């Protein structure tokens, strides 16, 4: 126990680790909350699309810093700008197709990947470790500036969710009723998507492009299996998300594993375990 505490103290004494773990604990709450709306509205793929489009923003920030030899804006901010831009592009493209509205997402995802690849190839001196951390996340990627930005955005998101909670839940479960009861559905939907873009972009460095959307989807998938109410499902998903994040962090540090991958693997392990447990329980109950 003493040695465990001393390991913990050692981690907390390291500045980079402190910012990273605090950010991850915040993400452990935000991701399932925003993810629940995404899942209910059947927009799971949008999180994946926006993370790839945000990547284009981050890499553009790197390219600009590379070409002009100074940072016009923090690459994270470029990621946020692209994330929000991506939400509008998806919405615009959706209107072009009547029956294939979902086509807008793979198009924007491909655009994001193609632009990222282009910007990275034009930037000189970008090493494979940096690219690896963008794709799979790194605990070294969260500096003091990133952490302050994360705190500000978290505060804004909490205010938005607390003030619009009833409207968000009504919209999620019954859009027609939401319109009839006077909720400005288009505006609220836009705010939700922008919130999603913010969460994805700000935590991109920590978890990685390929896995950030998983942290929004997998814990809430556990919540759906266990929860008896919306609140209950949210609490369950936050608990599993936090266990995965904290455990994943220590494991990734201790065994030098990629942070995002470790966290998501733990999350998916919990999901599969619960699925199997439910299946076995059902068989047992049927026999009884």
């Amino acid at each position, binding site marked *: 126990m003493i040695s465990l505490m001393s390991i913990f103290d050692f981690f907390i004494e390291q500045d980079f680790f402190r910012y990273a773990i605090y950010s991850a604990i915040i993400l452990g709450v935000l991701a399932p909350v925003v993810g629940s709306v995404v899942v209910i509205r059947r927009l799971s793929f949008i999180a994946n699309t926006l993370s790839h489009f945000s990547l284009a923003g981050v890499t553009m920030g790197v390219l600009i810093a590379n070409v002009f030899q100074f940072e016009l804006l923090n690459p994270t901010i470029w990621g946020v700008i692209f994330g929000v831009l991506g939400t509008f592009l998806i919405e615009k493209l959706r209107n072009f197709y009547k029956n294939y509205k979902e086509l807008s997402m793979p198009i924007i995802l491909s655009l994001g990947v193609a632009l990222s690849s282009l910007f990275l190839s034009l930037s000189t001196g970008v090493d494979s470790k940096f690219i690896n951390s963008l794709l799979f996340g790194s605990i070294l990627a969260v500096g003091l500036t990133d952490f302050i930005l994360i705190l500000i955005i978290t505060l804004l998101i909490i205010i938005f969710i607390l003030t619009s909670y009833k409207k968000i839940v009504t919209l999620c479960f019954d859009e027609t*009723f939401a319109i009839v009861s006077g909720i400005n559905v288009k505006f609220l939907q836009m705010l939700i998507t922008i919130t999603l873009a913010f969460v994805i972009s700000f935590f991109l460095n920590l978890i990685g492009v390929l896995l950030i959307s998983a942290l929004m989807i997998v814990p809430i998938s556990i919540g759906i299996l266990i929860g008896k109410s919306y609140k209950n499902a949210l609490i369950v998903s936050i608990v599993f998300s936090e266990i995965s994040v904290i455990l994943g962090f220590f494991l990734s540090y201790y065994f030098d594993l990629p942070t995002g991958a470790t966290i998501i693997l733990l999350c998916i392990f919990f999901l599969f375990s619960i699925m199997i447990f439910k299946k076995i329980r059902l068989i047992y109950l049927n026999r009884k």
Partner: protein
Amino acid sequence: MRVIVDKLSFAYDDKIVLNNLSFSLVSGDFLSVIGRNGTGKSTLAKCMLKLLKIPDKKIFLDDVDINKLKKLFNIGYVPQKSEFNYEFPISVKELLLCAYPKRKDAFFTQIINDLDLNVIYNDNINNLSGGQLQRVFIARALLCNPKMLVLDEPTVGVDQENIEAMYKILSKLKSEGITIILITHDPVFCKDLSTYTLILDDLGFFSFEKGCKTYD
């Protein structure tokens, strides 16, 4: 609520669904809207709820053009069962409290009691029967303190016992002066309650008649 529909027409692309439809209702009227699939019953409901765009001066609620209303006050809507998102868990309590702009108060509790929802109050919506679910939807609509109630096929998937319970609820609401518009395949369901019947046909024609009628 006084409702006037004046020469309302509506078409999807080239298909005319409603053609110069006109009728008027006053408080406490009960209108059954009947017709086969695709005759525009739900389209009419959507027009009345501002879910579809219509030209000015076609529908008036308490003598105000519906297009001039920024928000539909005092209108309750009970959706078709299939329109509801079922897979995610949500309890009856959460669904109703989220639809109610205020905190839980005496009015809220009264509606829960009137519709006999106390037993299922904490249950997951997914575990309810068709009849229980419709009672929850009616309660949600009543929380808007409606002067007009629009119900879209409320008897689909509901057993006879619960249909009769719903009949009693609607009868009480009618006697309280709420204008009720019922979209239904089953005109027999409310034959004693209907003050008017609107029969819609495939070609966009209609007939608006007193009392309860059926179609061939």
